[in-house]
């Protein structure tokens, strides 16, 4: 802290702070409204969700969530009356709309696919990225700058441009619409981020630690395992979360290379259709469930965010 803290000549005045604060709070509130609206819509009934004027106060319902997890068929009232008593809330709600639950929807499997592919590719990308970053950080690698630039340049390609040959290649190799194919692809995309971020983190760990360990009789590999890795845990965790978010959010590859068994949630959510157009409460419910992990991660990551989004170029 400088000596001028008490009567700083440059510190903003109270009024300036007040005005700045008001504008920022207003912007934050307005920008968060769309998300709150989606969250609210997920608890509306289909008629409430398309009411005019838009309903701010409404009777909450979990019909959207029921519709998200089930498929339904329309039946005659006579048939529905002939059935036994409803089992549970969802059943009851659906029957009121002259429908019966036909079975589970594809949402859960798609969500599980997203989890498997995101975690699988993140693990591989961080594993490969940590090794490479350590290699680039500690050893004299010939053409290191060129290799690092090559690793980054793979990010400049538009995903659709990459998808054309990948589509053909996967068709030949039988990797189309498989979790393995998607994990490989996302690993390749994420590894560039992982190498660049982790190199920054490992550069910050003093070499003296390993050198001391090696004087104590450790080999280079043991020194890496026992001194560098424990010190890089924060960096590795932050990198892992960035990779997870990318794989979780990715749409272009998923939409083009998966169609059924390996489809992830982002291409699935827009296909949720109800009777007479899109079933917005169900879409909103799917969106809410899909976004919650991201919100948690954003809060966990807020200190490392800047580094992650600039490939480690800005470190604060």
């Amino acid at each position, binding site marked *: 802290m400088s000596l001028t803290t008490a009567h700083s000549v440059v510190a903003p005045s109270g009024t300036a702070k007040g005005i700045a604060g008001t504008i920022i709070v207003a912007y934050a509130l307005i920008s968060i409204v769309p998300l709150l609206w989606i969250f609210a819509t997920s608890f509306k009934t289909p008629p409430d969700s398309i009411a005019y004027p838009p309903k701010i106060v409404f009777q909450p319902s979990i019909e959207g969530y029921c519709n998200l997890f089930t498929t339904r068929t329309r039946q005659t009232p006579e048939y529905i009356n002939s059935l036994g008593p409803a089992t549970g809330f969802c059943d009851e709600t659906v029957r009121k709309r002259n429908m019966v639950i036909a079975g589970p929807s594809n949402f859960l499997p798609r969500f599980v696919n997203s989890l498997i592919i995101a975690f699988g590719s993140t693990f591989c990308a961080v594993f490969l990225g940590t090794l490479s970053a350590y*290699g680039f950080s500690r050893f004299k690698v010939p053409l290191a700058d060129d290799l690092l630039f090559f690793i980054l340049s793979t990010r400049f390609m538009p995903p659709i441009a990459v998808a054309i040959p990948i589509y053909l290649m996967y068709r030949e190799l039988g990797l189309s619409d498989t979790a393995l194919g998607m994990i490989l692809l996302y690993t390749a995309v994420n590894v560039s981020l992982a190498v660049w971020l982790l190199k920054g983190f490992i550069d910050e760990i003093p070499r003296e630690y390993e050198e001391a360990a090696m004087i104590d009789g450790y080999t280079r590999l043991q020194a890496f395992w026992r001194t560098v890795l424990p010190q890089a845990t924060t960096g590795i965790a932050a990198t892992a979360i960035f990779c997870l978010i990318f794989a979780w959010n990715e749409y272009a590859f998923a939409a083009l290379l998966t169609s059924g068994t390996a489809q992830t949630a982002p291409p699935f959510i827009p296909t949720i259709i109800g009777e007479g157009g899109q079933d917005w409460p169900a879409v909103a419910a799917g969106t809410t469930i899909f976004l919650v992990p991201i919100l948690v991660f954003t809060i966990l990551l807020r200190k490392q965010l800047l580094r992650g989004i600039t490939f480690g170029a800005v470190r604060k």
Partner: protein
Amino acid sequence: MLNRTAENVARATPEPLARKVRGISDKGLAWLFISPTILLLLAINIFPLFWAIYLSFTNFRANRPNEVVKNLGLANYQRILGDQDIWIAMQTTAHFVFWTILLQTLIGFTLAWLIDRKFRGHAFWTTIILVPMMLSPAVVGNFWRFLYEPQIGLFSYAVSFVTRIPPTDIQMLSNVSLAPWSIIIVDTWMWTPYVMLICLAGLRSIPEYIYEAAEVDRASNWRQFWSITLPMALPFIMLAVLFRGIENFKMFDMVTLLTGGGPGSTTEVASITLKRQAFESWRTGYSSAFAIILFVAVFGLANIYVKALNKVKQR
């Protein structure tokens, strides 16, 4: 705990292998560590790229793999450069990139400058502002379609509430002149926080003593802003513009789900044209050529821009 794991691994390793691993030179270890990444990128990124280059000289169609493939030389490239639709898509992309970057830089820098006043609770509100940029662009595009619905959508309702235009007339997604702005609004909503965050880092990197010196010299606030704040934050602003420029040039997911390129082709940015050519018309060779042109364009522009950025940094 890590130590114990390492010891167990060491003990479990058979003697000859252990000797081999221990005896490995630093140079060997460097390659051992780096080569898996390089191999993966060669297999998943570079090999397909070369395949795409090869395909771009042919008339190959992925939906007819058994047809005889003819070598066309540069014909695909010539056709693309003369194709009216491609030029329209490039103009649409340019319009989108220009306006999103302009709005995001202006709003993002202003927000960063305001947050840098360090009012009470600024950290909390900054985190709230950052949320949109972490979301999936596809899911964002999909739920903004709901907000844009005429009459029932929240956006249309809010606009009509303020402007008194009947809400049924606010057809953001189906009106030819409004649709390009609908994608610009969503992109700006989503990515302004990104520019803001980088600008904020720039503002915080300016040492306090420079302002103190300026204050001693009785430089006005206006003068301080133009001769200290802006020039010193410029490399950061340019970095943000570079990243946003590349990302928006490649834009696909958000626009696909919001407008699908429509109405007609008014919001058909380059990636959507590419997708239609490659995966709907199945003109694989032709679209590969277009993909190569796009890649070279992004790569070239980014290179020129990075050079300019380094010049600014050196100043």
